[in-house]
């Protein structure tokens, strides 16, 4: 059964009526001008006090009776054949309870898993690793992408070439496009390998009870971990329970059961005791994923009025022994260009495999594309923001440019004097896009208890974005009860299924299921209230914790009093995410403006301020939304100025796998950040919520890069923008 509803959708200045078809049991989608009581109000994270007080149980905090500690032996060689692994002496060390060989025939990066042990203390486990005898036959290796691209480079995989086949996108006629260009830029841009540096490292605590396995795991996807473990141990999925009550970050690196999770479960089975295995910071840097490096040869041309006529990208990227290093997406999505060709090739090197990282490919691609557009604008003597407006396909972003330019003071600052002593000031602007639209699959349960409390249960996980808080807010909004009476219970595969927290999918995928569950529960509660109030259920409303007859608000019953009438212990209802049903638009725009100061005698860059303008459908909690903007920009500052996974060419070892040497922005490196949200009612689900995690990150590094080029009058085309590179660029002016 389905019904058609007409919705007022769009954004300020671009509203229209849209008819969507929705299932009968689906609450009517929120639309433009919707009056909320909980949603849209700055709400501190419900679990903030627990986290701040150190009482939130992260995987690291799990302690079980008789628990052992696991540790992994990793290859010190970037490429070697393994002739043998001898665990005998290690196994006999007092306190060691299990040891296993994880080596294959070869290791292809320094840090690859070779063996593992479990012992009564972590110190004994580490001592035991030193007693494992491994006979390595070192082989030639290559750890720099440009070296791996040479024909005589050592082969990372014996079976194939280091450089993969190109992935090509082609629109129009690039050659013809360049012929009509009034100006063009031809330049090479590079971005380094960045690591995720989740504050909580990867790891798990595994505990067996017969053929039932319970795993506390630092993961972005509890059901993915469950399924991987079920397959690995040939168990039915329902025999595996995965719990992630609290998670210290993931950024894309924590999908599925990684080696450390499988190893913890294997050791626990061998030792017949629970095993905790959390990785060290160094292991985290070398073996749990990274954002691939890129080398982007960009040719871009435009007509005299700034309209792009052609873009050509030749891109190489390396995700170590993994793939997924493309960065062409922003070239295809950000601006209008009739003639476009991108060729992406993956290059293998002897380094840890890449994993998805916060908008895979986008920050790299944006950096090169936006710098190239600035270089082109300079040649055409056009204002850089104007150049972007000319080529912008998104009406929402057009509005965002206006809001951002006003808030940032673009017109004044882009023309302001740059010099004050040795300091040069500069400004930059870059565009963002994403599709944080979510997907179907999530189901939620909403439960009212006799004491008036409400629980929302869903098998999602809070990767740090505030999922727990916004889920509770959506349920409170739909039920018409105060937020304090709602508890969100997440992070357990015993709850109904939800998707992994990645791709900015969590908020858009979970909130419609939660809202539908809350609506279904409300229906049941109203049917319970109807006889007491002498009215039909459809004539009742709940608001501020009171059930009322719509036409006669004085005929009312407190929500808590109604709950006391619940027969038995509780009343529960389920809901699901209905496939996205059209609506206004699924696209997200966005733009960010950055201000920098460069000391031209030291080459040191300071990012002074940011203005970020974004849209993400209905903003459930503006406070956590701003927190996402802050996080996306701070991570962009790190990528722009500091972060670089450095591998020593002599040994193939990462030289900076510590928090000391791998440089992350600190408090003093964080700019003043102002966030603005454009309200867009998109009507694609019953909440119209889109994800924010990635849209807020893609443009940050590019905006800084553009601002630095503006400050010193020359582009620095290689990230990070370290003093050596900045000084070299100044020297070349």
């Amino acid at each position, binding site marked *: 059964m389905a019904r058609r509803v007409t919705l007022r959708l769009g954004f300020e200045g671009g509203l229209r009526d849209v008819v969507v078809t929705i299932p009968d049991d689906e609450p009517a989608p929120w639309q433009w001008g919707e009056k909320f009581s909980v949603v849209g109000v700055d709400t501190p994270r419900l679990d903030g006090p627990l986290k701040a007080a150190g009482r939130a149980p992260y995987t690291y905090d799990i302690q079980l009776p008789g628990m052992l500690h696991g540790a992994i032996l990793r290859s010190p060689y970037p490429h070697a054949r393994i002739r043998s692994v001898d665990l005998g002496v290690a196994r006999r060390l007092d306190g060691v309870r299990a040891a296993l060989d994880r080596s294959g025939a070869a290791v292809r990066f320094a840090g690859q898993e070779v063996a593992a042990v479990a012992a009564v203390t972590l110190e004994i486990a580490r001592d035991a690793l030193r007693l494992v005898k491994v006979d390595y036959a070192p082989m030639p290796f290559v750890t720099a992408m440009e070296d791996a691209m040479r024909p005589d480079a050592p082969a990372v995989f014996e079976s194939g070439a280091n450089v993969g086949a190109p992935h090509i996108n082609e629109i129009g006629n690039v050659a013809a496009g360049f012929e009509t260009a009034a100006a063009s830029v031809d330049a090479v841009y590079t971005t380094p390998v960045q690591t995720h540096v989740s504050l909580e490292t990867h790891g798990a605590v595994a505990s067996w009870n017969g053929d039932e396995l319970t795993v506390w795991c630092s993961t972005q996807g509890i059901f993915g971990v469950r399924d991987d473990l079920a397959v690995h141990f040939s168990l039915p999925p329902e025999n595996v329970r995965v719990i992630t009550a609290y998670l210290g970050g993931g950024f894309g690196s924590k999908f599925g059961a990684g080696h450390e999770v499988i190893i913890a479960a294997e050791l626990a089975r061998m030792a017949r005791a629970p095993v905790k295995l959390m990785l060290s910071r160094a292991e985290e840097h070398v073996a749990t994923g990274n954002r691939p490096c890129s080398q982007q040869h960009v040719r871009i041309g435009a007509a005299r009025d700034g309209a792009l006529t052609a873009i050509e990208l030749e891109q190489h990227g390396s995700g170590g022994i993994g793939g997924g290093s493309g960065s062409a997406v922003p070239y295809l999505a950000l601006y209008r260009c009739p003639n476009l060709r991108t060729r992406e090739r993956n290059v293998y090197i002897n380094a840890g495999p890449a994993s998805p990282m916060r908008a895979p490919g986008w920050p790299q691609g944006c950096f090169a594309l936006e710098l190239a557009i600035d270089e082109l604008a300079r040649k055409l003597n056009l204002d850089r923001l104007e150049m972007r407006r000319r080529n912008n396909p998104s009406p929402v972003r057009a509005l965002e440019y206006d809001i951002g330019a006003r808030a940032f003071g673009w017109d004044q600052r882009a023309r302001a004097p740059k010099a004050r002593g040795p300091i040069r000031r500069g400004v930059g602007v870059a565009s963002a896009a994403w599709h944080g639209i979510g997907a179907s699959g999530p189901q939620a349960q909403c439960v009212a208890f006799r004491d008036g409390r409400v629980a929302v249960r869903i098998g999602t996980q809070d990767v740090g974005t505030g999922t727990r808080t916004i889920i509770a807010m959506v349920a409170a909004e739909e039920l018409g009860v105060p937020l304090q009476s709602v508890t969100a219970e997440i992070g357990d595969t015993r709850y109904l299924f939800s998707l992994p927290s990645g791709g900015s999918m969590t908020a858009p995928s979970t909130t419609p299921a939660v809202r539908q569950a809350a609506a279904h529960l409300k229906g049941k509660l109203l049917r319970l209230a109807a006889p007491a109030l002498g009215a039909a259920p459809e004539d009742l409303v709940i608001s501020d914790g009171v059930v009322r007859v719509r036409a006669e608000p004085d005929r009312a019953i407190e929500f808590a009093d109604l709950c006391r009438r619940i027969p038995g212990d509780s009343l529960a209802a389920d809901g699901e995410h209905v496939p996205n049903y059209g609506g206004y638009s699924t696209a997200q725009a966005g733009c960010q403006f950055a201000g920098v100061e460069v000391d031209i005698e030291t080459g040191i860059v300071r990012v002074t301020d940011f203005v970020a303008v974004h849209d993400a459908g209905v903003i459930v909690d503006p406070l956590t939304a701003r927190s996402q903007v802050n996080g996306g920009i701070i991570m962009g500052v790190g990528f722009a100025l500091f972060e670089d996974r450095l591998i020593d060419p002599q040994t193939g070892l990462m030289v900076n796998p510590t928090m000391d040497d791998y440089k992350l922005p600190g408090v*003093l490196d964080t700019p003043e950040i102002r966030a603005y949200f454009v309200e867009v009612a998109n009507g694609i689900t019953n909440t119209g919520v889109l994800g924010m995690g990635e849209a807020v990150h893609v443009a940050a590094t590019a905006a800084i890069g553009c601002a630095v080029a503006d400050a010193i009058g020359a582009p620095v085309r290689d990230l990070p923008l370290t003093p050596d590179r900045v000084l070299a660029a100044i020297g070349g002016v």
Partner: protein
Amino acid sequence: MKQFAVVAPADLASATRMLAEPNRSALAGGVDLLDMLKQELAAPAELVNLKALGGLDRIESVPGGVLRIGPLVTLNQLAAAPAVRERHPALADSAAQAATPQVRNLATVGGNLAQRPRCWYFRNPDIVCLKKGGTKCYAVAGLNRYHAILGGGPSFIVHPSNLAPALIACDASLALNGPDGERKIAVGDFFTSPKVDPRRENVLKPGEIIAAIEVPAPPTGARSAYLEAREKQSFDWPLAAAVAILALNRAGEVVHARIVMGAVAPIPWRAPSAEKILLGAKLDRALADRAAEAALAGAAPLAHNAYKIPIARAMVRRAILRAGGVADEPA
């Protein structure tokens, strides 16, 4: 980390006796020591806890204007002490700019002087470099963007102490206490060039500890400045640091000059050539430029660290101008 015991000595004499035994480490703030233990670069059987000894955490004014600084004085204590701030602002600033507030609350003056280098090859447990008894300094042909531009070879570490350049510029001295008694040396003589012994950074003998740091009264009219350039403004090691202590006569001529750089060489690097240019001359921007030029004249960069030369030069010039009370460039 290997298991170890922590022992509490009854007095200084028994502390030095304990430390003279093999496989012992002194525990003061524990900041660098804990890193060394966790990275398995040190595996002592016993840590001799100097904090068990009373009286080593005080700053005392002794007759003659000398400040006697206990080795367990923390960096934050040093940075905040009125006597240090008033008489030796460069020293106070060098302490205030190190690491983070949390680290400065733990890290001690003695530990800052005796800490091991931060070179990423030295710190990597899988690499046996020259400093760890190996045959080569991996920085020479490797990744050396943060390494020495002056005084390098055969090891190219930079000495990590923030305080040492300021203490040298203050003509400070150290009281070293060991099993054979106490000896006193200038801070400038405490550090060992890798050309003498690449495996060590100072002259401490087995069992010897820094028992006190003595900073004499500054010359009449002397003013000081400490500046460092860091990639990150929060929690980073300097790319280059410079201390200038200058006294000017009424004519604006320099009558006392000390220029010392940090983070550029395996030891804190004094620049006598720069001091010579300054002495007797009238301080202005051109003179500061010439002195800074001279301070870096002998620089011999590796493949990736030549950029540190202009940075160090800028730090020296700015420190001179700030100490001399001359505006750098018009605002």
